[in-house]
């Protein structure tokens, strides 16, 4: 029973895409299709959750084009976590997108919602992949299916952004990730994800180091510097796409893939003793701090959030590189908490764009008085991203800090703290000045964001609050993971 349901999880959004294409003429019906598909998908993922948390790993073989390289699906706790986040946030994003696309008068909405669904299908494929080659397949499909979303506007600027997006993502995956997969196959004769990793004992420490570096840079979606430029370039996309990219699908697929490879291909123990760890920790630390500093200098709100994401993603990579139980737990938790936090921020950015037609941070003074709900949610999400209690983001940082101490890298705790300060510096002032800044003379009346947008914003902001008080849900996953 559990077996064929894996394929259905990947198939459902594709069916949804088809339904969207078929009902393109009547927007309301079409939107209903998207939301309905989202709920069905969420239901499917939830229904399989108890079994996986109890320790089962459902498995399904799809095809075997080359002997030894099957296309297969398997669900383990990390993948389940990712799938849950993706499917639940898809529904929220769709609701938001309805408000945004209509409020902004965007064209080609059918194409938009259809490729949205296809991208989610590819995301599910990444979450459920049983081996490196299936992961690679869905990873590339994700890049290809999000390309039309990034270049949705069709302008020359959108095309340029699309070219950078595609160029870096496919470039890194073909030049580094594919050779890394080939090398793994070469050394071990297998590409399957297995508990404890498949490389132990088959590969010299130097080769392990190089292989890890190839994987880390080959997964361009994790936005490690210097292959991070695609993220700000992708900001030409409509905001629901940015929300999708930065919270749900693309970036999380990247760091999730890296985390999964660390746990199931290398094995935590193998990496813990390797010299390349030092090197990668430097790269990660530089990305965390560097991206935060660049973020502070960005006036364009979405670009600021983009660089913030680059920085936050490296937290997760940090957890992967630390290769300790706490580090991995911290990384997994941060996948979830960053997702809800960042998506809220992007929702707010989009709402500001639609309602007030503003894109720059310097223009936002005083806006809070006219868009209180939006800026309120922005404040909540900012605190969560900064990692301060009483909001969800704190837990990720907490476990990462413990992981850093466990592995003996006390300096990393310092990096985390500095980064927290930087986060506060580039995020918190925005809502503060929105509420308390600006002149009090009457301005053009600005309404709040469209209702669907507000619903979405409130939902995700609430999640930021709730998850803080109920971290046990997330901890269940990490426990199952580390078993």
């Amino acid at each position, binding site marked *: 029973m559990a077996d064929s349901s894996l394929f259905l999880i990947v198939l459902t959004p594709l069916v949804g895409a088809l339904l969207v294409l078929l009902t393109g003429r009547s927007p309301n019906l079409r939107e209903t299709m998207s939301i309905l598909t989202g709920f069905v998908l969420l239901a499917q993922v939830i229904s399989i959750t108890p079994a996986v948390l109890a320790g089962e790993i459902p498995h399904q073989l799809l095809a075997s*084009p080359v002997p030894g390289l099957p296309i297969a699906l398997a669900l383990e706790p990390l993948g389940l976590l990712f799938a849950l986040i993706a499917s639940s946030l898809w529904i929220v994003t769709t609701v938001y997108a309805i408000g945004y696309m209509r409020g902004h008068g965007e064209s080609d909405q059918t194409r938009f919602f259809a490729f949205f669904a296809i991208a989610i299908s590819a995301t599910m494929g990444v979450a459920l992949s049983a081996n490196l*080659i299936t992961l690679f397949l869905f990873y590339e*499909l994700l890049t*290809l299916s999000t390309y039309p979303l990034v270049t949705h506007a069709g302008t020359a600027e959108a095309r340029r952004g699309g070219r950078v997006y595609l160029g870096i993502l496919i470039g890194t995956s*073909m030049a580094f990730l594919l*050779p890394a997969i*080939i090398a793994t196959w070469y050394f071990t004769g297998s590409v399957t994800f297995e508990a404890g990793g498949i490389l132990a004992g088959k590969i010299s420490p130097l080769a392990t180091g190089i292989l890890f570096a190839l994987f880390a840079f080959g997964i361009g979606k994790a936005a490690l510097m210097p292959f991070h430029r695609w993220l700000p370039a992708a900001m030409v996309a409509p905001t629901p796409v940015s929300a999708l990219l930065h919270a749900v699908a693309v970036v999380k697929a990247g760091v999730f893939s890296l985390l999964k490879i660390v746990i199931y291909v290398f094995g935590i123990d193998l990496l813990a003793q390797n010299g390349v760890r030092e090197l990668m920790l430097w790269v990660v630390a530089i990305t965390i701090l560097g991206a935060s500093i660049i973020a502070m200098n960005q006036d364009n709100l979405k670009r600021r959030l983009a660089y913030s994401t680059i920085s936050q993603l490296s937290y997760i990579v940090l957890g992967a590189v630390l290769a300790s139980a706490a580090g991995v737990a911290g990384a997994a938790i941060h996948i979830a908490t960053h997702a809800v936090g960042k998506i809220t921020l992007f929702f707010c950015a989009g709402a500001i764009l639609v309602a007030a037609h503003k894109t720059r941070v310097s223009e936002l003074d005083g806006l809070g008085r006219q868009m209180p709900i939006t800026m309120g949610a922005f404040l909540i999400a900012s605190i969560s991203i900064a990692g301060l209690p009483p909001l969800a983001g704190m837990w990720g940082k907490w476990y990462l800090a413990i992981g850093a101490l466990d592995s003996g890298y006390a300096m990393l705790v310092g990096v985390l703290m500095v980064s927290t300060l930087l986060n506060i510096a580039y995020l918190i002032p925005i809502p503060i000045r929105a509420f308390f800044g600006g002149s009090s003379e009457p301005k053009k009346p600005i309404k709040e964001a469209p209702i669907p947008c507000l619903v979405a914003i409130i939902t995700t902001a609430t999640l930021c609050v709730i998850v803080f008080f109920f971290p046990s849900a997330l901890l269940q996953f990490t426990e199952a993971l580390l078993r």
Partner: protein
Amino acid sequence: MIGAQLPALQVVIPLLAAPLCLLLYRPFATWLLTVLTSAATLVISALLLTHVLGNGPIDYTFGGWAAPFGIAYRIDLVNAYVLLIVSAISTVVSVFARLSVAAEIEASNQGIFYTAWLLCLTGLLGIAITGDAFNLFVFLEISSLSSYVLIAMGQDRRALTASYQYLIMGTIGATFILIGVGLLYALTGTLNMADLAERLPGVADTRTARAGFAFLTVGIALKIALFPLHLWLPNAYAYAPSAVSAFLAATATKVAVYALLRFLFSVFGESFSLETMPLAHGLAVLGSVAVLFASLVAIFQHNVKRMLAYSSVAQIGYLTLGISFVSELGLSATILHLFNHALMKGALFLALGCIAWRIGSARLGDFQGLGYRMPWTVGVFLIGGLSLIGIPTTAGFISKWYLVLAALEKGWWPVLVVIVIGSLLAVVYIWRVVEIAYLGERREEAPSGEAPLSMLLPAWLLALANLYFGIHTELSVGVAREAAKALFGGL
């Protein structure tokens, strides 16, 4: 029994159909005859393949004259595979050709067009099936002469000069092959390939044998369009009628590669061809350069057909890389890629043919917004392009994977890098077209609407075949591996 005569019928049916075609003369009748003949050859080649898979190689002698005195046809797995590819492509593309040819060639010439098509088919099938070296030359010339005619019928006047250039270079190549065969005959006294294989090892250490080998290899290399002897290909494919580009791109060079395989492995034996003569490294270098150089040049082309032609030169580089590994795995990668490349390029050129039918141009600038005006056609192009790049679940990925495995087995890391870079370059030139098709501003006054079904369906058939054989590889890979094993063991 007809069954016993199948090898002869494989060539005789299209050969007899050609003059019949000339007599029939009218466009529809000649088209129909071409499709039926191609279908007949497809059936025969399928029957031959199943027979060979089940019972081993077939030896057929003409007129009852036993080899090596008479002309013998020998069909083993490699031939049968190539026969299947050629006849299948001919069938699919000739179905496509009706409207495409009607749009590009005057009605009074269409009968002659299909006659030349059938002769070309005869020649290609003959090259693939024969077991006699001189017979191979004859069929080679038959297919070449008819392809000169086919190419010259293109609309653009540059088709004439392209055909002329191909004629000059092709005849030089064929004459080199003739010299090579002549030298071998002088040395051994036989023209039968199996007999040559037996007698050559005794005299292999002579200048004559080496000279003969050199002439043969260079002559065939010209036909394959191996860098740097590829100069005729871009113009020939760019200016030929669309159906001809599709047909030749998917078959002609494949059959020439088969001829090379036959001579290198069956007649001379791999230890002589690739180790005594320094061909292994030579082919590796030329193949790598072909991949990199041709892909680079393809990126800068404004004519999409020319871009695909340069892409073909790069793919031929991959084929030669497979040979240069001198291993069973490398050879199976090459044989597999013969099949997969035929599918890829067939689909791509058919898509271009549909586009040419609708907008009458192959210039990249005219493709703006085409993705919305002809979504199904550009969809075929997209699938073929993804296969060319080597995305998993496409046929192209399977070929690349086996090439990579063969490179790893040999430990030739530079070649691995070349293969990866080749894929990256393919991404660039394919994505140029996709970007313009989907993201260019839509021009309202441009001709719009899909190509007719009789053109679209064959294109989609090949596109779906790319996807199908990217997942269900038992047939394509299985036969390729068996064929490589047989070839590696000598005739």
